[in-house]
């Protein structure tokens, strides 16, 4: 066991596995802070993962692949927002519908565009980045350096999100809208606009997470490759009490469990037991072990402005 824990691979894998959870968890934080429960992040990740590969393959640039994924992901998010915010549809059912659609849609496109052989093997990948100085430090260097560019982007985004949400006027308004939209409206704030913003941001972050799965970790797309990460991200967000740093911490924990189960492939302990860990943690988080998480008061409640 000690051997495994001292293996830097375990820790860099933790970071790598935490990234596709932390990104949508951050996105979910924005969406839910503005009062919209966005379960569709799972589907948005999947669609983004596909379009990242498609655009990267077509343009020959992984960066354009990422950009394409973001555009498509945000389009889906805005469609979700239109139905959830403007038409005040049930957010959970709507999210489920988008997820089921995403699964079928991407499988269909995969087959129609790329055929049975899957996505081309020459699809470009987003680069890994070596950090000077740090890369030469033993152990630490192997963990912190040489990761995908998305990992570093995520870390920047965590700090930026925290600043945005808790230290800017716009962040204050987003939080107000998620707590009491009526109060926000009487203070002259446009509730609908800010909810669109919250959902669009969740689309943006989920799309980056999805692109990371297909052209960050790999350079291919396979059906249902998001495999529930959008949901686990929601759990991480709740575990992290709807804060960027908290979400990241929870994502690290879940990422660690995944990384550990990968390292234990060949050991006596069943990897399935370890794989259960994130989900057990999720349940514990939801029933309030370690301080009850209090959600934004108007989370998931559609708002209709007065006429």
């Amino acid at each position, binding site marked *: 066991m000690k051997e495994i824990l001292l293996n830097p691979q375990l820790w860099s894998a933790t970071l790598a596995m935490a990234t596709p959870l932390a990104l949508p968890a951050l996105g979910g934080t924005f969406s839910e802070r503005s009062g919209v429960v966005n379960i569709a992040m799972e589907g948005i990740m999947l669609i983004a993962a596909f379009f990242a590969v498609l655009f990267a393959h077509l343009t020959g640039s992984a960066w354009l692949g990422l950009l394409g994924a973001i555009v498509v992901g945000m389009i889906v998010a805005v469609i979700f927002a239109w139905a959830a915010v403007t038409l005040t549809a049930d957010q959970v059912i709507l999210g489920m519908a988008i997820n089921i659609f995403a699964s079928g849609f991407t499988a269909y496109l995969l087959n129609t565009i790329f055929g049975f052989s899957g996505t081309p093997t020459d699809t470009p990948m987003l680069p890994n980045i070596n950090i000077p100085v740090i890369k030469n430090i033993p152990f630490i260097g192997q963990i912190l350096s040489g990761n995908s560019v998305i990992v570093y982007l995520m870390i920047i985004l965590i700090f930026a999100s925290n600043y945005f949400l808790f*230290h800017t*006027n716009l962040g*204050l308004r987003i939080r*107000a809208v998620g707590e009491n939209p*009526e109060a926000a409206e*009487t*203070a*002259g704030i446009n509730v609908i606009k800010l909810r669109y913003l919250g959902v669009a941001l969740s689309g943006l972050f989920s799309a980056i997470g999805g692109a990371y799965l297909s052209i960050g970790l790999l350079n291919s797309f396979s059906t249902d490759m998001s495999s529930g990460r959008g949901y686990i991200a929601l759990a991480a967000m709740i575990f992290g009490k709807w804060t960027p740093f908290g979400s990241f911490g929870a994502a690290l924990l879940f990422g660690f469990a995944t990384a550990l189960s990968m390292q234990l492939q060949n050991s006596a302990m069943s990897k399935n037991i370890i794989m259960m860990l994130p989900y057990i943690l999720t349940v514990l988080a939801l029933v309030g072990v370690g301080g009850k998480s209090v959600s934004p*008061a108007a989370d998931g409640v559609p708002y209709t402005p007065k006429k």
Partner: protein
Amino acid sequence: MSALLEVNNITKMFPKVRANDGVNLVVEEGEIHAILGENGAGKSTLMNIIYGLYRPDSGELKFNGEVLNLSGPHEAIEKGIGMVHQHFMLIPVLTVAENIVLGAEPGGISYNKKKANELIREISRNYHLEIDPDAKVKDLSVGLQQRVEILKAFYRHAKLLILDEPTAMLTPQETEELFGIMRNLKNQGISIIFISHKLDEVKEISDKVTVMRRGKTVGTLNTKETNEQELANLMVGREVVLRLEKSEYNPGDVVLSVKDLTVSDEQNIEKVKNVSFDIRSGEIFGLAGIDGNGQTELIEALMGLRPIKSGVIKYNNNNIEKLPTRERYKLGISYIPQDRQQEGLIMKFSVADNLILKEYKNSQYSKNGVIQYKRVFENASKKVEEFDIRPTDYNLLAGNLSGGNQQKIILAREVGSNPKLLIAVQPTRGMDVGAIEYIHKRLLQLRDEGSAILLVSLELEEIMSLSDRIGVIHNGVIMDILDGKSATREKIGLLMAGSQIEAKKVEV
């Protein structure tokens, strides 16, 4: 003085209702102008129009001589109109400062906490409204939360302040304090619209009164030149009996006896602490207190809706604290719950069905588990007539009736079964003068027939005019039990606020 706000011939239609029908109002600079009217008279609609939340179908608003075409509250705020809603528009988890500046934050992109706090302190000083900008709103008393709302308006440079039923949630002392603030603001040239249905408050604080009835303004009077009776008649549209005739207090045996009762809430926090009191037949026992001081938990324990922690509840000398609710009903205990739409009625059931919610199982309505509708309808038509439930069609869904008539359904079910003990929680909440008059009459009638009544109300006026004895609850403790005749408003108010010593002084 010149007119600050002019409302000319405003009309606003909602599906099926003409909420405002040719409304006219003139508010001068530096005056306190009361808007008096029953529930549903259109007061709130009018205020929401002035504040830009609703758009009128026709008519004209003028502010400072300029015609207003408001597309939302932000425009009203810009012009200098501020509003304190009956249900505060505050965000409990945010600080006082964040709540006040929200939507009009000082500075650029980043939230400038220092500047915000500074600005708020300055306004606090100017208007004599002390507040700690860094306190979380959820930690403040209702009175202070209201102060935050008022500050919110002045942060936005309000010249006209609309207060929508501002005293509904306050203790008498807090109300006095608010009136002090209002007079002070008036002296600084602020105009205030004060919405209320409490005649005494309107009489005390306002310079002018505009009375509304059924969506229309029926007249504007100088407060000095009118009296409560005239205002009440204008409001209801007929002669109203303001003071009920109450017969001699003639108590019988003890019906309900509560001893050392302790009850906890869901978080296992003790909400009722060692409470003891008796209620006799032929007596109305009023329980006064500010909302959330253990009344709900006490009543639910009495009705078997909530387990008790310790203590004894005796009904006609038998212990009932372990009996389920249905058994308590069978013994002759009736209950008018606080929330009529959630607990008192099933909104999607007909009036007739709602009338037998408690008795559907009895042999008179049910044969081998099949409901005998002929009997149900007989009962319904009898009750509808006796309790004057309108409309009289008992096949209508309860949800389609007005609040006052919904309450009459509950009254018919609970009072109509001739209970030996009636527990009535806020039986007239949100109802208008006419309906209140009726319900009070029925309660007194029940008392004279020898029932024991526990009346829980947040309206001091109601408690004082009906009760033979008054218990005052504060923080789960009965502070004192007073004689209904000699109890004063001031003393009850002090006890409600938890101040026993101060209350003792008043006695002298």
